[in-house]
Structure formats: structure tokens, C-alpha cells
């Protein structure tokens, strides 16, 4: 009887110890996993923050450069062209009035174009006019070329901070440049919508469209990457919807 009790006791104790050790091992493993996950999560966050800071700095430098170029165009080249125009008016060459008037018109066009370019490059001008007004101004310039019919539809009564506005404006500029270069479009619509706490800016053209797979190629990828990186800074998502001969829609959601 006593031998029985001893054996039972020994076996039960051994089993309890082993099960306890196994449970301790599992708890230690779970703790280790939690700590590792936390560390991985923090590392990812640091990496993301670093990338975002780097991108912001890059964009800031880019904006400063653009503002500098804009100022140079406005203050320097613009002034020189205005002086050239004044000088042209003071010329009195008989029989060549038509030529002088033609040159004057060319100079006037160059000054207007440069002023427009200067304004679109200048960050302060975007800040002063506001996002929507700046976009409308760009669309008006497109309209003036006579090649595009444009519309700006703001269904969301959209307002945005200056910093975000500049980034969104640059994205739209880049997309519009792409439309001019590649789309072969005759109509551009920019529509701002709001649904479920999300605002969406749609840039729609009626151009020839393209195969989305081509975006993966290195050359066309750079433009999209630039736009995507800009969008990332303000926490926006970018999607491109396109089909051959069926136009393209670039959608920025934030």
C-alpha cells in the first residue's frame, strides 16, 4: 500500500513538474514573441517616420528651388523682356510697323507666359491664392491654348491647409503635365468629392488611356513614384484607372 502511494506521488509530481516546465516555456516564448513584435513595430514606425521626414525635406528643397526660379523669371527675365518691349516701342522705323507690331506681340506673349509660369512655380502664390483658385488658374492656362476643354467641379466645398495644398497642387501639376505629354486628350475634368470622411480628387481626361501594366516599367514608373511619394507625405492614397482608348482617371484619396 505504502509502495503504491509512493509510486503515485512520484509519478504525479514528475508529471506536474514537466507540465509546469512546459507551460513556463510556452509563456516565455509568448513573452519573447510579444517583445519582438513590439520591437519590429517600433522599427517599422521609425523607418516610416524617417522616410517621411526625408521626403518632406526633399520636397521643401524642391519648393525653395522652384520659388527661386520663379523669382528669377519674374524679376530678371521678365524685366529684361519688358525693357526690350519699351525699347521696341521707341523705334521709329518707317515702313516696318507691321514687323515691329508682330515682334511686340511675341514679346507680350513671352512676358505673359513667363508670368504664368512664374506664378505656378511660386509656392507663395499658391498659398496666397488658395488651392482651388490656383488649380482653376492652371486649368485656365490650359484652356487658353485652345487644345483643351477644362472643368473644375468642387462638390466637397474643399478647403485645405497651405502645406497640404502645395503638395496636392504639385501632384495635380504633375498629372496635368503627363496628360499634355502622353494622353492626347481634348478634355480635362478635376472633380473633388467627399464621402464617408474621405475626400477624393479625381483628375479625369478623355485621352487614349494606357495599359496599367506599363506603369511597372522603369521609365513610366518614376513619374508615378514621384506622385505617390508626394501623396504619402499627406497620408493620401493614389490610384490610377485607365484602359486603352478609354481615358484615364487619377484618384487621390485622403
Amino acid at each position, binding site marked *: 500500500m505504502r509502495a*503504491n502511494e509512493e509510486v*503515485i506521488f512520484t509519478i504525479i509530481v514528475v508529471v506536474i513538474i*514537466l507540465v509546469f516546465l512546459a507551460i513556463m516555456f510556452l509563456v516565455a516564448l*509568448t513573452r519573447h514573441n*510579444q517583445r519582438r*513584435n513590439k520591437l519590429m513595430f517600433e522599427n517599422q514606425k521609425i523607418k516610416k517616420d524617417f522616410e517621411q521626414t526625408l521626403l518632406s525635406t526633399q520636397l521643401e528643397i524642391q519648393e525653395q528651388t522652384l520659388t527661386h526660379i520663379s523669382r528669377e523669371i519674374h524679376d530678371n527675365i521678365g524685366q529684361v523682356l519688358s525693357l526690350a518691349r519699351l525699347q521696341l516701342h521707341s523705334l521709329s522705323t518707317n515702313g516696318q510697323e507691321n514687323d515691329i507690331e508682330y515682334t511686340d506681340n511675341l514679346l507680350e506673349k513671352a512676358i505673359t507666359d513667363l508670368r504664368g509660369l512664374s506664378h505656378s512655380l511660386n509656392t507663395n502664390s499658391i498659398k496666397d491664392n488658395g488651392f482651388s483658385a490656383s488649380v482653376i488658374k492652371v486649368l485656365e492656362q490650359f484652356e487658353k491654348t485652345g487644345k483643351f476643354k477644362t472643368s473644375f467641379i468642387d462638390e466637397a466645398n474643399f478647403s485645405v491647409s497651405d502645406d497640404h495644398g502645395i503638395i496636392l497642387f504639385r501632384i495635380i501639376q504633375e498629372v496635368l503635365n503627363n496628360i499634355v505629354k502622353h494622353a492626347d486628350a481634348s478634355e480635362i475634368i478635376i472633380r473633388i468629392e467627399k464621402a464617408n470622411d474621405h475626400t477624393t480628387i479625381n483628375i479625369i481626361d478623355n485621352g487614349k488611356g494606357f495599359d496599367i501594366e506599363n506603369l511597372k516599367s522603369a521609365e513610366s514608373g518614376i513619374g508615378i513614384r514621384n506622385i505617390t511619394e508626394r501623396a504619402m507625405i499627406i497620408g493620401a492614397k493614389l490610384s490610377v484607372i485607365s484602359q486603352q482608348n478609354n481615358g484615364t482617371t487619377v484618384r487621390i484619396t485622403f
Partner: protein
Amino acid sequence: MNLEYLQYFHFFQYIALFSAIYFYRGLKIFMAGAMVPLLLLVVLIETLSAIIKTLGFLNNHYLYNIMMFTSTPLYFYLFYYFLNIKEKFRKIYIYISVIISVALLCNFLFFEGVLKFNTLSIIFVSFCTTLLSILLLFRLAVSENYFNLSKHPYFWIAAGLLIFSLGTLVVLGMNQFIRINNLNIVNKVLYRTIMPVLNVILYSSYSYAFYLCARMKKSYSPL
């Protein structure tokens, strides 16, 4: 028929089997589809064993011996996928699995025999499952994928098996010693107390793991 030998832990086995069938799609995604035939085998043998005991036949060891050498290849098959073994080790793993399975069959047929409880086999099988469970837990812990360990089905399968195998290693490993020394009371105490608890731990871990398989199937993150 009053099945007096049907104990409470049998219900945990049934629950595990039903949840395996119910969450089968999730199990398949986690390469654990073979858990269904494995649990079917366990439930069949355990229920048959209880019926045989109730009918008055004292020896049901041959049933457990059959379960041992039939369930072991299934375990090896499951762990082959759970561990996601690298190509160069795959052949070694398959060879070892086949050798062990054949050795268990030989022990059943020629050495310890059909009617006598195969103590050597149970010790060896428990040792192997302990080792495989630790290996799986280790792989989960060092995996580069980001997931919560306690929310991963493999963790619960390995944890349940580890605790069960360690317990069986001692309790069933001592079976022959207890019988030789006529320590029948010891046998009854051990089989009525420790084994049911170990079974409850194992099969409730399985059931929870199957539920996790179904829940995690959309965000599957293997090893």
C-alpha cells in the same frame, strides 16, 4: 447500453473532431486537413475501447497499439507541412518518419506484441512528438513574419501536444512497470486523474487552434 467507461475527456475529443470538420476550410489553408482523419481515428478507437470495457473485456490494449502506429505517420505528415522543412532536409525527414513508422509496426507485430501495451512505442512516439512540438514552437518564435504567437493555430497545436506528450511520456511509459509490480491502484489513479486532464488540455487546444484557422484564413501568415 450504459457506457460507464466513457469519461468526460471523450467529449473534448468529440468537440475537437466536430470543430475540425466544421472549420475544415480554414484547416486546409493552414495545411492541417489531416487533423480530421487523425481525430476520427482517435475518437473511433477511444469509443470502441470504452464499449469493449463496458462489455466486460478487460484487455483493450491492442486498440491503443493500433492507434499508435496508425496515428504516428499522420503526425509526421502534419509536421512535415507545419515545419515547412527546407528542401535539403525533406528527404532526411521522410526517411526518418518511414523508419520510425516501420519500427512501431514491427514492435506491434513481432516484439512487444499485439495484446501487450507497447510501452517502448509510446515512449518513442511521445519523445518524437515532444521534439517536433518544440521544433515547431521554435520555428514560430524565430519566424520573420509579424504575428501574435498566441493567436497562431500552430502555437496551440504544438503547445497542446507538448504538454500531452510530456505527460504521456511519464504516465504511459511507466505502464509496464506498474503492471509487473501489480500496482493496480496506481494504474487506476493515474488513468482516472492525470490522463483525462492531459486529454482535456490537448483536445481543447486543438479545438481553439481550429477556430483560429478559420478566423485567420483571410490574413494567413505561415512560417
